[in-house]
């Protein structure tokens, strides 16, 4: 397990902020936001992490974590790529160009948590109505009667 972290650290150096072995063949790699696409490309093509498992976000009130789980058909290993981003801006590079299967996962993360993925081919709401306001899973979301934008405000 630890050679995955060592290999990524040898390749990317300072871009890997932290490596943590969570046990049960899960290895967590914290990456800086700038290098995430390169690390993803490397882990897909050089290390065999070919199955996009899921993408999600965790809202910590002062920061936002965006987490991608990638698995491989050859073993039980799961690579957990984690990027810490600013909660107000909430911009991170999309990994959909690397694994097309991340498409809906990133759309859902945008929909529910308001993470804006750059370079995503089709970033629309997925589960909520297209004219919904706000992102329901954010910690500061206020539960109230749904406020819809009028159809004429909406292209």
């Amino acid at each position, binding site marked *: 397990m630890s050679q995955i972290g060592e290999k990524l650290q040898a390749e990317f150096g300072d871009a890997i902020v932290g490596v943590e072995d*969570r046990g*049960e*063949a*899960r290895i*967590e790699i914290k990456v800086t936001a700038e290098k995430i696409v390169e690390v993803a490309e490397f882990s897909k093509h050089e290390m065999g992490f*070919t*199955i*996009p*498992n*899921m993408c*999600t976000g*965790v*809202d910590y009130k002062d920061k936002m974590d965006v*987490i991608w*789980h990638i698995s491989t*058909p050859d*073993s*039980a290993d*799961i690579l*957990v790529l984690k990027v810490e981003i600013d909660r107000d801006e909430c911009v991170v590079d999309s990994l959909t160009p690397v*694994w*097309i*299967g*991340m*498409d*809906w*996962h990133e759309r859902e993360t945008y929909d*529910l948590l308001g993470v804006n993925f750059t370079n995503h081919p089709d970033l629309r709401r*997925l*589960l*909520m*109505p297209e004219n919904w306001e706000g992102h*329901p*899973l954010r910690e500061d979301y206020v539960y109230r009667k749904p406020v819809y934008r009028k159809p004429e405000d909406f292209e």
Partner: protein
Amino acid sequence: MSEKTEMNLFMGPQHPSMHGLWSIRLTIDGETIVDADSQIGYLHRGYEKLLTNRKYDQGIPICDRLCYVESHSWSTAYTHSIEGVYQVEIPDKAKWLRIITLELQRIASHCLWLAAMSVDIGALTMLIYPMNAREIILNMLEMITGARMTYNYVRIGGVWADLPPNFEKRMDASFEEFNRLHFEFLDLLEEAQIFRIRTQGIGTLTREEALDFGTVGPVARASGVDFDVRRDDPYFGYDELDFRVVVRHEGDCYARYRVRLEEMQESINICWQAWDKYNALKATDPYRNMDIPRRPPKGEVYRRIETGRGEGGFFIVSEGKDTPYRVRIKSPVFNNLRTLTPLIVGGKLADIPAVMGSIDLCVGDLDR
């Protein structure tokens, strides 16, 4: 005649083959599909928020309602992840009890899929036969858990009840009856040429596509991806059992149908092996670990199990409180349905029900 002949068609959510609530926006040119866009979210109930508002054990009966076809798999998946958060072990007896019920649930789920898919492509008689077979399995599950649809059988640290007396006899008779029915409906479908014409070579998914879209379960295995969570990331006691992972390489609707059919037989095999292991234990052995700490430690856990539709799991972030801080449900259908657009684009309109049926949709765990 070089005019533009494309038109838009909304298929669903009221279309009879749309298994519940979702729809596709199609662009068609004659009978050929030019573009497709799936619209999901009609059944979005906000499970991830529901679970974070409740204590860990209060979430288990809710997860039973995640998927109405195989509720037991989902409550087990959630409990399995909670046990990862709490770092508790479950006794041996609970492992075998969970495996027996999980495999029974898989058979029941595949039976319902077979009934639904056959009806979708016009084999209307086939609605009845798999439903009869499912009834046998549901009766067995009722005998173990006391319920027929939402079982609420698992608890943190084990299960709530042991097997009833005389279960072996019941299992023997039930599986014999099931096998008789199984081969009966096998004949009905396999011999029907229309069924083969409508499924063979339709909706082909290559291995590269299957990997790139992150498909899981029978859909991936029908395309030659040799991966099964039960064997490759074993949980409970699956690593001590000897079973075959069904893999086919054609990647079409027929391959997906065959994979699920053979999996049903394999599940019966697993049930008997698990029964043998269970039988070797003493009757007084515990089936539930009561030694659960009051609050879990901090941490992040992702654990997965193989549900009937593929890899289902829960990602839980714990802040050390008695409620989870964040829960993310990894749904197998969510990944599998994303392949629908590449599968149907370029094909004919009439192939959509066949392709969709072979993906085995459950809108409950698709929308969460």
